[in-house]
């Protein structure tokens, strides 16, 4: 079974530029999550999709971050414009259902904003 795929693995941008991350979840998984993990901390949930609908985006900085999950499969997370404090690893995860189940994580995208 293929795992969660993410790209790119690394990205370096200057502040005020825009960036997009892509995630392909495990086939058949209805729920998709985007997390932000700052160095030395645990992952923080940014947004949770159930199929192609948003379930929770309470911690997503909506003035600069946006995410979509078209057709309930792949998802993209965008940051525009980026700030220095956005430097982090962005993790995508999927699960067959809600967090009542285990989550499967991708390798993450390490973003550096200079």
């Amino acid at each position: 079974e293929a795992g969660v795929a993410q790209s790119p693995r690394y990205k370096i941008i200057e502040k005020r530029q825009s960036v997009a991350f892509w995630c392909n979840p495990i086939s058949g998984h209805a729920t998709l999550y985007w997390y932000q993990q700052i160095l030395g901390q645990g992952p923080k949930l940014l947004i949770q999709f159930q199929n192609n609908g948003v379930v929770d985006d309470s911690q997503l900085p909506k003035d600069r971050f946006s995410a979509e999950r078209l057709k309930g499969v792949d998802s993209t997370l965008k940051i525009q414009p980026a700030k220095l404090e956005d430097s982090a690893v962005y993790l995508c995860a999927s699960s067959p259902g809600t967090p009542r189940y285990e989550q499967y994580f991708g390798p993450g995208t390490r973003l550096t904003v200079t």
Partner: protein
Amino acid sequence: SQQGEEDPQALSIQEGENATMNCSYKTSINNLQWYRQNSGRGLVHLILIRSNEREKHSGRLRVTLDTSKKSSSLLITASRAADTASYFCATDGITGANSKLTFGKGITLSVRP
């Protein structure tokens, strides 16, 4: 805000020894999960324990849950160098139909060969 708080923050042991890591949380939960993260890689799910369970085993892993004390512990027996990683507890809070995981800051485990 981070619900789970792991203790200790860092742990260094000799290969073959047991490693015990603790997690405390503040609000009622549906389940508690432990994840491992190797350097530079994504998280891997280790074990899930539900609020009505007190203990679970998986290979060399043993997890306990005490809901009265709002705490959990992860025991790794006969540790190996490959167990070197960061370990996170994550709680699924009781917030209605739309549950979500809240992760702690993690414990850095170093196993010396």
